[in-house]
């Protein structure tokens, strides 16, 4: 039983990272109804920025996190302005393909700059506390607490501030929002900035938890985060959080029962089953098609 609890804790840690990335997918989808497939790679860029700041410049944890979030947000806004904005009126698939192209570009550019996997130094003191038989490391506490804090801030921003209201307005109706004076381009840029900075934060945390980073790490984690967003109901912010935790827990708890090579197999099969019974995700509302 303690083993299961211990693993559940690990699942919570992984789930926090998935949830943070899933938020970026779901925010961009909510506003633009576009899947930003480069998002997983922005997460990877976050991890590499963290490496540069921490290992090469020797910053401590908090500045590294903040600078990484800021840097990734800048890259995210730049990508949005340069690659996605001209395609806003284009068919949806061309935007998706552009996103795939941007993702490939980020991967291979990073690969060209640093061909070998890098190791992120340890920031946090290696402290573990024992509660009963369960051991709890400072790292886990830090990751889980920080991501929950970030999610709470995001939830507040979206629900309580002016800019959050503008975001909800645009996702409600893209055509009417500008008529009542919502600065659409600015709000979309802010959404990208927030979403990608969360991915940057997730990159730092992932780098802390699993210190060896390589340019292709964003692909798998990114797709899994996308799956979390869909499971929660894409476009729904709270859904993305729930979906991330569900997927993280599932992946870790599957290993408790099955051999670890079955991890992807079982979790994806369960996801398929879930989607068959709830095709619109957990919190998503079924969209009735108008005829």
């Amino acid at each position, binding site marked *: 039983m303690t083993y299961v609890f211990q693993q559940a804790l690990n699942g919570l840690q992984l789930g926090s990272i998935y949830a943070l990335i899933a938020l970026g997918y779901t925010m961009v989808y909510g506003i633009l109804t576009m899947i930003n497939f480069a998002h997983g790679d922005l997460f990877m860029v976050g991890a590499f920025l963290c490496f540069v700041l921490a290992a090469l410049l020797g910053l401590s944890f908090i500045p590294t996190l903040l600078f990484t979030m800021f840097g990734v947000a800048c890259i995210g806004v730049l990508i949005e302005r340069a690659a996605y904005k001209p395609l806003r009126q284009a068919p949806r698939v061309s935007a998706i393909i*552009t996103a795939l192209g941007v993702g490939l570009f980020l991967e291979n550019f990073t690969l060209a700059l640093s061909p070998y996997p890098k190791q992120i130094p340890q920031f946090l003191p290696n402290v573990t506390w024992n509660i009963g038989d369960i051991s709890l490391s400072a790292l886990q506490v830090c990751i889980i607490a920080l991501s929950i804090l970030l999610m709470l801030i995001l939830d507040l921003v979206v629900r309580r501030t002016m800019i959050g209201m503008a975001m909800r307005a645009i996702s409600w109706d893209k055509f009417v929002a500008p008529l009542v004076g919502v600065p659409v381009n600015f709000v979309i840029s802010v959404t990208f900035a927030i979403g990608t900075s969360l991915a940057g934060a997730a990159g730092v945390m992932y780098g802390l938890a699993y210190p060896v980073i390589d340019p292709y790490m964003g692909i798998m984690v990114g797709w899994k985060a996308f799956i979390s967003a869909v499971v929660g109901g894409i476009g729904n912010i709270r859904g993305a959080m729930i979906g991330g935790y569900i997927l993280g827990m599932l992946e870790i708890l599957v290993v408790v029962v099955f051999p670890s090579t079955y991890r992807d*197999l079982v979790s994806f099969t369960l996801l398929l089953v879930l*989607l*068959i019974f709830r095709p619109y995700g957990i919190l998503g509302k079924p969209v009735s098609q108008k005829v």
Partner: protein
Amino acid sequence: MSMLREKLRNPIAAWTSRNRWAGPCLLALLFLLSLAVQGFELLDPYVQLILVYVGINIIMTVSLNLVNGYMGEFSVGHAGFMAVGAYTASIITVKLLPPQLIGLLFPVAVICGGLAAALVGLVVAFPSFKTRGDYLAIVTLSFGMIVKSVIENINAIGGPRGFLGMEKVTTLPWVFVWTVLSVWVIRNLVYSKFGRGVLSIREDEIASNLMSVDTRHVKVLAFVVSSFFAGIGGALYAHVLQFITPRAFDIIKSTDILIMVYLGGIASIGGSIIGAAIYTVLLEVLRPMGVWRMVCMPLVLVILMLYRPKGIMGLKEFSWFVPLRDLMAARVWRERGQKRV
């Protein structure tokens, strides 16, 4: 009206008399050429290999275009079908067939690979009844990953270490034959009654249902045909590479095929052929650049999408792929439109 009909009848006669044998003759000539290239080593083996890859990629791209372009779904797991075909065919040639018969029975193995992939495609088609768009993308994506992990967990076929021992039986003439066959079949499907159903699903599923298109039937058929040819592509791929691992068929491979489809343009067979050829050849031409070619390719793609969001041939088609009947119908519509103006 009779004048118009007269005018229309003459071009038909002229067109068919000039072109009826042109296509088949050209294909036969090309086939002989590919035999000659293989027999007398007319081309560098490296160039031959690239041509083989171009052929396989054309098969993959055209088959994915049936689902993604013509039917308007977003399938992201095409490499999964490819893996099924590749493994099935390889197991047949390595473990079941006696070595001296491999050359002769290779087509059987390839078809078996295609059938196995089609069977799996049937399974994926069922969720597509209820879900569309991004949710179907997830279904196909997870399916691709499931295939990969299933293969990784079967030790008898090498698991994550991969599977080898295939002979190099995929030659240029074979690839040529299979490519022509798959393009021909899919082109005929697209312009058949079934193809109209596929197009109508892309435009509006509910409306096409009301117009008595059996959407479930059409969807199943489209998925099965698409995965069948993906399996054939995979079988050919396995027998040119002579070594396959589950990692060769991961999400990166699927993304490659997607890029070829959208580079060429959706709902266009000519576009798929061009897209696959350009992408494959360009990657080889840029090889001296080393890692930086992988940086340049996505940039080229993004720039192409920014200035030509539909891809090279989006929704357009070379007229020699379009059946005469459709060409004439289009002309009638144009002329009527002009008359009204």
